[in-house]
């Protein structure tokens, strides 16, 4: 039997992705649509009847009348006109049974496409719990398409849908006469097919929103949530990180004992294990950060945070909509910049893209963690705050403050003030589903580990090569790395960076940091472990204890300030190019970030020296 191509469509927040995860499990692939930066999610499964299905999870849309690139992709793929995409054999339209008034309008729009359509009435359990009764046969007759009930968050929640897929394809629904008032039609259908009791969840929503959106308690809750997010990243991840760190140290020692001393042993122990190992150590922190963002997103809180912050963002000339891409940028600027697609106003979008790299991404976290751990005393303040966590919070705050300032400056030059729009749905609160969280986290962990396995390992090997060759002449004084290529490059860069208090080892670490910021930690480990002579394993695992003997506090603070701004990430610059299709925007971003980084590090170093 040939593979059935199905496209999953529906309004945002209809539970489409949960249904997609339920149907495909982990057999899914996330990429981009050809020629666009809209995320393309595809998965595979086989029905009980043995039918192979290729399922495409289209971006959520309110209407075929697209107002964003996401909605345009959905419209074109449904119509079968998107270049490089197979036209779907069947459209499975997903609607939230508790919000039919909004979602059915889009379902009716699907009738105009001229393809078989099937309606999956999702979250039917929640609707029934609320005392809603839906007459499925009647709904099916009035909509002119088959209707199945699904529960995206329950194990067997899609069995009716799967059974339907084993049968013949439903007929193409007759298009509605042009000019039909879809809202009036939806109202009529709801009156015929749905009996409402008192909507229970609505009252829960009302009560929650009274606190969450409260002018005083709302922002307070937001600050507390964000603050605990950063404390958690620093405090909870520590035991896991220590475990991985110790494991890597033991691995290096074990491998070191197995291999004879020489070039190969140095490559594996100093290059690969010390370099990549010190980066893998940060996996727990990155996962905790992503978990927080995923939970906030899945629970429906993020748009509410955008609501609370809209006024604040408008000070910088942006709307609350920019908040979500900027928050994602705390994990990584690449998905953050990609998430700016949801901002309709092009100017708002450009400014959000330009300031997204100022949000402290998780790749900077390894550097911050290393330096804070090494230079800031582990002390508690006022009984419950941890000084190290506080410094981390301040670094994040500086990034945010600078972003707002930069946005304000960029806005200054604007002559035509287009109206900034906010208009967005505040979805119902939901308990995040463990499966969706796990799949989302797995996706992040995979991306991170693939990066470590490819980019980071090759860079650390390259750096190891640069720092090991040429070897010093016999009987030469000083550590071997002084004679190597890396040592020479570092010394060449030194005049530029010396005013910032950087030594040549830092300069060397800055180079591979261009490809991926977190490599700087691995690079420092490699440089210092080779420089320290015989004691290689220890140097790699104890970089944190070693640094204070090599650097002054002013140098460490200066490097921290540098990292708040530095545009050292090729992936970010590449995604800016891809999203804006303009090299001059890339140049502007790299230029202003470099200038800010240099100025901030310079000031920090010289102010710190005064104390």
């Amino acid at each position, binding site marked *: 039997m040939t593979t059935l191509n199905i496209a999953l469509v529906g309004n945002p927040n209809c539970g489409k992705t949960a249904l997609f995860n339920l149907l495909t499990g982990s057999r899914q692939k996330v990429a981009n649509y050809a020629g666009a930066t809209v995320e393309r999610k595809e998965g595979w499964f086989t029905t009980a009847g043995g039918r192979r299905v290729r399922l495409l999870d289209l971006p959520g849309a*309110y*209407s075929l*009348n697209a*107002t964003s690139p996401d909605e345009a992709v959905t419209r074109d793929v449904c119509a079968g006109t998107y270049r490089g995409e197979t036209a779907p054999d069947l459209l499975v339209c997903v609607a939230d049974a*508790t*919000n039919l*008034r*909004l979602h059915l*309008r889009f379902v009716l729009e699907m009738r105009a496409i001229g393809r078989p359509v099937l309606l999956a009435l999702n979250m039917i359990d929640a609707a029934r719990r609320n005392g809603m009764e839906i007459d499925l046969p009647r709904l099916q007759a009035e909509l002119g398409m088959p209707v199945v009930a699904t529960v995206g968050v329950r194990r067997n929640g899609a069995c009716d849908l799967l059974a339907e897929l084993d049968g013949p394809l439903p007929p193409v629904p007759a298009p509605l006469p042009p000019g039909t008032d879809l*809202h009036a039609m939806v109202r009529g259908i709801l009156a015929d097919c749905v009996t409402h009791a008192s*909507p229970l969840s*609505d009252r829960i*929503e*009302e009560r929650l*929103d*009274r606190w969450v*959106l*409260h*002018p*005083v308690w*709302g*922002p307070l809750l937001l600050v507390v949530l964000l603050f605990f997010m950063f404390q958690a990243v620093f405090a909870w991840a520590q035991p896991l990180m220590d475990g991985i760190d110790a494991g890597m140290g033991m691995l290096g020692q074990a491998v070191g004992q197995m291999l004879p001393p020489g070039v190969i042993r140095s490559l594996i122990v100093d290059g690969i294990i010390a370099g990549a190992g010190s980066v893998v150590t940060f996996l727990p922190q990155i996962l905790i950060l992503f978990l927080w963002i995923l939970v906030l997103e899945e629970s429906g809180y993020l*748009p*509410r945070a*955008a*609501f*609370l912050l*809209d*006024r*604040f963002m408008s000070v910088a000339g942006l*709307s*609350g909509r920019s908040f979500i891409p900027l928050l994602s940028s705390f994990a990584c600027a690449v998905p953050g910049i990609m998430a700016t697609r949801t901002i*309709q106003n092009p100017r708002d979008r450009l400014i959000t893209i330009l300031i997204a790299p100022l949000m402290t991404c998780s790749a900077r976290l390894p550097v911050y963690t290393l330096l804070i751990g090494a230079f800031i005393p582990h002390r508690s303040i006022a009984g419950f705050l941890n000084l190290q966590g506080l410094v981390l919070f301040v670094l994040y705050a500086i990034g945010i403050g600078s972003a707002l300032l930069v946005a304000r400056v960029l806005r200054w030059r604007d002559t035509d003030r287009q*109206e*900034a*729009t*906010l*208009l*967005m*749905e*505040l*979805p*119902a609160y939901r308990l995040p589903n463990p499966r969706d969280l796990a799949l989302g986290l797995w996706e992040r962990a995979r991306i991170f580990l693939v990066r470590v396995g490819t980019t980071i390992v090759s860079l650390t090997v390259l750096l190891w090569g640069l720092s090991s060759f040429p070897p010093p002449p016999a009987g030469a004084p000083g550590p071997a790395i002084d004679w190597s290529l890396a040592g020479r490059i570092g010394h060449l860069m030194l005049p530029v960076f010396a005013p910032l208090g950087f030594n040549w080892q830092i300069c060397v670490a800055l180079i591979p940091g261009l490809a991926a910021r977190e490599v700087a930690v691995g690079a420092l480990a490699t440089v210092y472990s080779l420089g320290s002579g015989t004691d290689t394993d220890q140097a790699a695992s104890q970089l944190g204890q070693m640094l204070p003997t090599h650097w002054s506090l002013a140098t460490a603070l200066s490097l921290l300030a540098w990292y708040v701004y530095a545009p050292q990430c090729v992936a970010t610059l590449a995604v800016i190019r891809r999203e804006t299709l303009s090299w001059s925007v890339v140049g502007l971003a790299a230029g202003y970030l470099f200038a800010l980084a240099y100025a901030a590090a310079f000031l920090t170093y010289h102010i710190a020296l005064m104390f």
Partner: protein
Amino acid sequence: MRLSDLPRGTDAVIDAVDDPGNADPVAQRLRELGFVPGEAVRVVATAPMGGDPIAVRIGFTRFALRRTEAERVSVHTVKEQE
């Protein structure tokens, strides 16, 4: 009266969504989201620092919108009608 002037917690019914210019995309999107004549609407929250934006409930859905956007929607309060 405009939706942007509706006090918090007052029940109202939508009369019309007006396009300030020709084929205004915001007005179009508002209509697609269910801001159509006859729908019941209520302001459920106003944002900190000046009360802009506002959150409204229409049917079972909540939307956040700025007051300039809400100005496009004309409403009458339920009491007004009686």
